[in-house]
């Protein structure tokens, strides 16, 4: 029906009383997300948008079990909050903040692995199963149900592309933002595996960028194990080497992570790579029309 989250998913908001936390709690509720509680140390007993606020995650899940937690926590405190969620048994963690120290992200991922938990982000817009559950900060209106799964390293560019899809009448199953940092929880391969298993997803759009090797690994996986068509768009064709292009992970270092290497790998895996974001819908229609 969808991947990772659906209309049953029970969501906790860590950092709910902050500006971002309270604003997006309202937006997520408006989208239909089941938010069962919020956490803000020292603010227990308050409520935000009708959602009860607790002092700790343990207290919250003691009152109401939760499947997922979204963190609106300043970067220096994100590690502690993430480890708390993991220790309290949360299995899906969505890390919105950017600028989480790299070693903290490494720690979070290590403990998530031990707890068999999925981490989305950090520095992500989150994920959304269209029409069912949004755990993130993306604008509500672009995410309408349909047959396409989307997975992206960047936010606004993903909205741009999903916007083009929506305008041309193609909706989405689940849209996942991997996050722009050097160390993030989910990689393309993880999400592609889930989309391959999801009966409602007929085609996948992969929005990548220069830096790292996630696209190359995705290409190898697509080649070896995927039956569903994948369309890609990659940002950073014009980026010079050695410069960090906004995202910590978007950098061509020591000749690795180039645009060319990624396009070559994806093309070899029979993935169609769109020249412009605008071209994505036509390529998608070609493959889902042919199904």
């Amino acid at each position, binding site marked *: 029906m969808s991947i990772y989250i659906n209309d049953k998913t029970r969501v906790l908001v860590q950092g709910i009383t902050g500006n*971002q936390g309270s604003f997006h709690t309202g937006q997520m509720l408006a989208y239909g997300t089941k938010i069962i509680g919020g956490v803000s140390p020292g603010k227990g007993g308050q409520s935000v948008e009708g959602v009860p606020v607790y002092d700790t995650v343990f207290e919250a899940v003691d009152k109401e079990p939760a499947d997922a937690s979204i963190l609106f926590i300043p*970067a*220096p405190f994100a590690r502690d909050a993430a480890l708390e969620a993991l220790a309290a048994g949360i299995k899906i963690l969505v890390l919105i903040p950017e*600028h989480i*120290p*790299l*070693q*903290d*992200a*490494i*720690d979070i*991922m*290590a*403990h998530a*692995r*031990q707890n068999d938990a999925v981490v989305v982000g950090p520095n992500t*817009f989150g994920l959304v199963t269209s029409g069912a559950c949004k755990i993130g900060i*993306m*604008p509500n209106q672009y995410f309408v149900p349909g047959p396409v799964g989307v997975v*992206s*390293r*960047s*936010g*606004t*560019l*993903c*909205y*741009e592309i999903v*916007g083009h899809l929506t305008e041309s009448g193609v909706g989405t199953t689940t849209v996942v933002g991997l996050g*722009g940092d*050097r*160390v993030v*929880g989910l*990689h393309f391969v993880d999400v592609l595996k889930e989309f391959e298993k999801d009966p409602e997803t007929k085609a996948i759009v992969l*929005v990548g*960028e*220069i830096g*790292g*090797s*996630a696209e190359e*690994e995705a290409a190898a996986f697509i080649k070896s194990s995927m039956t569903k068509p994948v369309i890609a*768009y990659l*940002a*950073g*064709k*014009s*980026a*010079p080497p050695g*410069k*960090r*292009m*906004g*995202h910590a*992970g*978007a950098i061509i270092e*020591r*000749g690795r992570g180039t645009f060319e290497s990624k396009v070559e790998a994806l093309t070899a895996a029979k993935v169609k790579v769109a020249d*412009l*974001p*605008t071209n994505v819908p036509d390529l998608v229609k070609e493959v889902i029309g042919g199904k």
Partner: protein
Amino acid sequence: MKLYEYLGKELFDRYGIAVPAGRVIENAGQAAEAAAELGEVVIKSQVLTGKRGKAGGIAFASSPDEAKKEAERIFKMELGGFTADKLLVEKKVQIEQEIYLAITVDGTAQRPVVLVSLDGGMDVEDVPEERMIRWPVDVTVGMQGFMVREICRKLGVKGSLQKEFLKLLPKLYKLFREMDAELAEINPLALTPDGLVAADAKVTIDDDALYRHPQLPRIKEKTALELRAEELDLAYVELDGDIAVMANGAGITMATLDMVQHYGGSPANFLDFGGGADVEKTSQALELLLGTNPRVLLINIFGGITRCDVVAEAFARVRESKGINLPVSFRLVGTNEAEGRVILEKVGIKSFTSMDEAVSHAVDLLGA
């Protein structure tokens, strides 16, 4: 933040990693004094560029006179666009073998990874893949003796050199973790008659964790524009084209540059002013861009957290206070789009809803 070699070596020393005896000097006279004390020396320009040696930024000297002359020469050199304020004068070490050793982050494994090769001294890109041992470290376990022994077995290293590695690797790992390094590289790691000595030091500290290290100096080897962008907390990269680009989000900013190139234009910069910036911050970003004297200004806004009215308001404000005397192509969709469009129309700017149209218009403006 990349650290100068001498700062990296100060960290090494603090963590018990052997470095050559040396002095940091700020004028050529001190080079002669250092050489008088240390004997045969190597003099190294303290700049951040990787190709120091090939460009002549490293010299050997066997007398104080020679050291002074070489220091004078190196102080005058420009390397990677910068001249050095400091040189490092070190006692020349007797090298029996050059080893490559680094700890960095493996994004796929989500772990620190130890890289070791017995082919040290050369550029790491030139080390054959099969001669490089990679060991991702589970941080919940840490760097343990058994890992070092296994790395040594794979390298074919035994006996006293293995013992040296058993002492060294946990120290470098500790530095890497505690100092929030992204990279801690020793190349070459010199095997000398006294054991392993770090003949070079390349340490990069995670910018996002700098707040945890107030004792580290802030390195300012950047252009004035880059420094200003850093102050404003903007993601900014100078490029050599003539269309200034400003967008919200790293991916879409890259995609905008790509599209400029696609339509035959050439971007002057990468500027992602992030999500949720207010009028003040957006204005400052705009002013920074205008200061680079581009020929065309392209603004691409897909509003999510970023509000279109805020961006339009900032544009109008800067236009009024500083004047904007160049052609502008503006794309504006998303949150509070209608309000933004009204503000822009008031100052005579027609905005696009399509990114393609806005970008191709910007390229057209260049030709106009």
